[in-house]
């Protein structure tokens, strides 16, 4: 029967191949986006595997300590530099044994040698534990050291770079990072600051910083946000040939084919196409991964390999896509098996039941529980809880959608005009099928409703002072003397506000900021000299990422939605081609058919969109006031989304217009 199914496809001619191509294209796009989403999670894991040692787990009591580690963020040329100080545990730390690759322009010791990845006693990307006085830098920082004058950056360090940190120790290719070996008793151990000194027994045991975990959880929520539209696109694609397949299977059933036989016929075609398309989608993602890797998150882009999901995950996802497509194909079989005549003759309307409202109630219960849970769970679980809430409310929107379609269909069916009558009756005839082209855009509006108030928060954040340096020790006189010697003019005052000691320095020329901070560093050994904005730089990066994340998720969601809408709209035309031809033949102007299709789409979308927007705002309410959507940035996001949504629907409808005209044109009448 499998060969029969594929033979039917092969012999189906250009129209069958075109349809199969549309199915394949839809599944491939959905799979590629799924791969991107999975790749983002893989990327975060990969980053953590390479750089987790910078935030190591403390050695257990009694365990031998190999080093003490302190990680902070310094700044130069307006860019953050991750500075990891590695302090030897005792008075006799081992000296340099194997120097790393030479840094061009540096005067460090020894010739270049390849850098192996770190083991448990050496950090990843370094050949060994840095010895006191050693300075290991990332390639990007080595370039910056060459670019800036020594008194703007290099003078902050104990000496020239010893070697380069390998890719195995970098968060992303252009990361600015320095690992400095310090002797025992170095002031860095006791210097004040936000970060803590951690005694480590191994670099293999790490902790995940709260902000990194936050990124993971946000990514999980983002994946959940795009998961439903992707599933919708898969479903829409798999059902593209539903009617043709249903009629063919009904014929086979009438001829006496067993349930098993028609199942195989139904499944084989869809599964083969969907699986091949899923593989294509994942290969496509691998192909464009260098471009995806340019999208920055948490301070920088990615290594291309990071944003490719692992082989195991990819295989699992391809199998899942194949199974989903199969399930979609099998879903329509029940009616064929129970009543093949019903399928062949369309005896009854495919109604929707009010029991769906129970699903909506259940989703609201999940939301209430999730909302309460978010106040008590750890950050590690917050993303999963939020993803569950998002999926539940997504589900509610999908469940209530066909009911709305049925209601709108009833209203349209009572209207005076013929397009409204045709649209209304078609909506009532099969509300679930009629909702399918709208599902993508409806869910995109949900996502917009969820993100609009959050984006208002992200865009509305105030920028902190980025020009006044705070030195944690010393007096204004000391600072003024140091700066005067270097010819740097500055406003120098005793530390103000919450700070109890130190000096605030505001260079007259902002371009002198790096020189000033480098000069002032010796006043407070072991500390970093920073502005307020730099001290809270992580927050700024997070806000930047939130803004970018909002845009990426919205663009991805609308891409999926537009593809799904177009695919489903084409499917509806293909499924109803016989009726459309006869209507045309009996004198119905194509304009009337197009108006009917437009109303069939626009009217229920309006109502479903409003419901989805309300659910989206509800979903965001644990994080921010829903009124945030009324802030200018929230309104911009929402307005853009609604415009894009309308444009997507119009474009999708317009895209299938040539198909409608082609199927109903006069020379097609021979095939009636």
């Amino acid at each position, binding site marked *: 029967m499998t060969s029969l199914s594929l033979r039917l496809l092969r012999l189906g001619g250009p129209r069958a191949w075109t349809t199969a191509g549309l199915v394949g294209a839809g599944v491939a796009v959905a799979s590629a986006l799924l791969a991107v989403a999975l790749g983002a999670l893989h990327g975060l894991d990969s980053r953590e595997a390479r750089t987790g040692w910078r935030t190591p787990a403390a050695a257990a009591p009694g365990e031998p300590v190999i080093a003490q580690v302190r990680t902070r963020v310094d700044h130069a040329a307006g860019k953050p530099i991750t500075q990891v100080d590695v302090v030897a545990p005792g008075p006799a730390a081992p000296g340099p044994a194997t120097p790393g690759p030479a840094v061009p322009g540096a005067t460090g010791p020894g010739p270049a040698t390849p850098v192996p990845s770190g083991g448990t006693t050496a950090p990843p990307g370094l050949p060994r534990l840095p010895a006191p006085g050693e300075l290991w830098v990332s390639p990007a920082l080595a370039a910056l050291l060459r670019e800036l004058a020594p008194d703007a950056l290099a003078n902050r360090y104990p000496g020239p770079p010893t070697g380069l940190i390998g890719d195995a120790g970098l968060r992303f290719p252009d990361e600015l990072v320095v690992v400095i070996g310090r002797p025992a008793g170095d002031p860095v151990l006791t210097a004040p600051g936000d970060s803590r000194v951690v005694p480590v027994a191994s670099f293999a045991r790490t902790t995940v910083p709260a902000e990194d975990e936050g990124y993971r959880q946000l990514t999980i929520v983002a994946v959940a946000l795009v998961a439903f539209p992707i599933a919708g696109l898969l479903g829409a694609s798999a059902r593209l040939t539903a009617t043709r397949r249903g009629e063919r299977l009904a014929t086979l059933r009438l001829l006496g084919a067993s349930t098993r036989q028609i199942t195989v016929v139904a499944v084989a075609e869809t599964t083969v196409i969907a699986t091949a398309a899923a593989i294509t989608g994942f290969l496509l993602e691998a192909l464009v991964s260098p471009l995806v890797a340019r999208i920055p998150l948490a301070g920088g882009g990615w290594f291309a390999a990071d944003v490719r999901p692992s082989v195991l995950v990819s295989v699992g996802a391809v199998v899942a896509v194949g199974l989903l497509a199969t399930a979609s194909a099998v879903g329509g079989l029940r009616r064929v098996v129970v009543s093949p005549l*019903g399928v062949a*003759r*369309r*005896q*009854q*309307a495919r109604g929707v039941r009010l029991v769906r409202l129970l699903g909506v109630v259940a989703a609201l219960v999940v939301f209430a529980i999730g909302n309460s849970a978010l106040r008590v769970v750890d950050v590690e679980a917050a993303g999963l809880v939020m993803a569950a809430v998002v999926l539940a409310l997504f589900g509610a929107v999908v469940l209530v959608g066909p009911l709305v379609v049925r209601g709108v269909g009833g209203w349209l069916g009572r209207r*005076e*005009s*013929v397009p409204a*009558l*045709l649209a209304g*009756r*078609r909506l*009532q*005839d099969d509300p679930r099928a009629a909702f399918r082209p709208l599902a993508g855009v409806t869910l995109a509006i949900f996502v917009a409703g969820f993100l609009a108030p959050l984006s208002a928060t992200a865009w509305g954040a105030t920028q902190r002072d980025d020009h006044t340096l705070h030195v944690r020790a010393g007096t204004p006189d000391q600072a003024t003397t140091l700066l005067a010697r270097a010819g740097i003019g500055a406003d120098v005052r005793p530390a103000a506000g919450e700070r109890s000691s130190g000096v605030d320095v505001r260079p007259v020329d902002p371009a002198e900021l790096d020189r000033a901070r480098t000069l002032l560093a010796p006043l407070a050994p072991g500390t970093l000299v920073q502005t307020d904005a730099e001290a809270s730089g992580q927050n700024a990066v997070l806000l930047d990422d939130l803004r970018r994340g909002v845009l990426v998720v919205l663009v991805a969601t609308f891409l999926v939605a537009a593809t799904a809408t177009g695919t489903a709209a084409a499917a509806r035309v293909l499924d109803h081609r*016989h*009726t459309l031809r*006869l*209507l*045309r*033949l*009996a*004198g*119905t*102007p194509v304009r*009337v058919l197009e108006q009917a299709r437009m109303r069939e789409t626009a009217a229920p979308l309006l109502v479903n969109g409003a419901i989805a927007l309300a659910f989206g705002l509800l979903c965001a309410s644990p994080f921010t006031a829903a009124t945030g959507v009324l802030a200018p940035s929230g309104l911009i996001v929402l307005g853009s989304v609604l415009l894009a949504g309308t444009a997507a629907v119009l474009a999708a409808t317009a895209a299938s217009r040539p198909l409608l005209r082609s199927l109903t044109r*006069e*020379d097609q*009448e*021979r095939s*009636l």
Partner: protein
Amino acid sequence: MMLRGTGVTKRFGPTTVLSDVDVEVAPGETLAVTGPSGSGKSTLLHCLAGILVPDDGEVWLGAERIDRLSDARRTDVRRQRFGFVFQFGQLLPELPAIENVALPLMLGGMRRRQALERAASWFPALGIDGFQTRRPGQLSGGQEQRVAIARALVTAPAVVFADEPTGALDSDTGAHVMDLLCGLAVRTGTALVVVTHDPEVAARCHRTVVLRDGVLRDGCVPA
């Protein structure tokens, strides 16, 4: 209003499906077009109905030459002056029977209520009273054809075209449907063109023309 085709010729690629066919049908007259499968019967019907444009020849409805009209205008003519009955699948499955019948009236601009009232008046005459709210899938083949006949006649067309109208029915039902179709056409002064390969159906029409390989072999034969 007389429907007349003269020298009608239609080609699909290298194949000449109709060759120089002359045919006419008067108001209240019923004409059967018969012939073996592939002889060009349906193509002739489509040319006469303004669905296809003949490559040569002319098609006139009264004083108006319809084969020269634009696509949009021919669509108007089909909706306003012609009615259609096909073998199967002609009713919109989503619409109840009465709305299927009322549809051409509404397409012509009639108010919904008035269209439904006029549509309802046809149901008793066709023996399907009580089936107004049923959907096509809930009707038998014969009932579906009667709804289709009501839909074809509800606009009081000049000509009704029927393509194998009894092809999907048993002989008794088919005979009944043909009696209704021919009887109503004559009573309302509507010309009827029936394409069929069934001699019994053809026998119920006033005249029969026979097509073979796209050529009118026997001319107009009185039944």
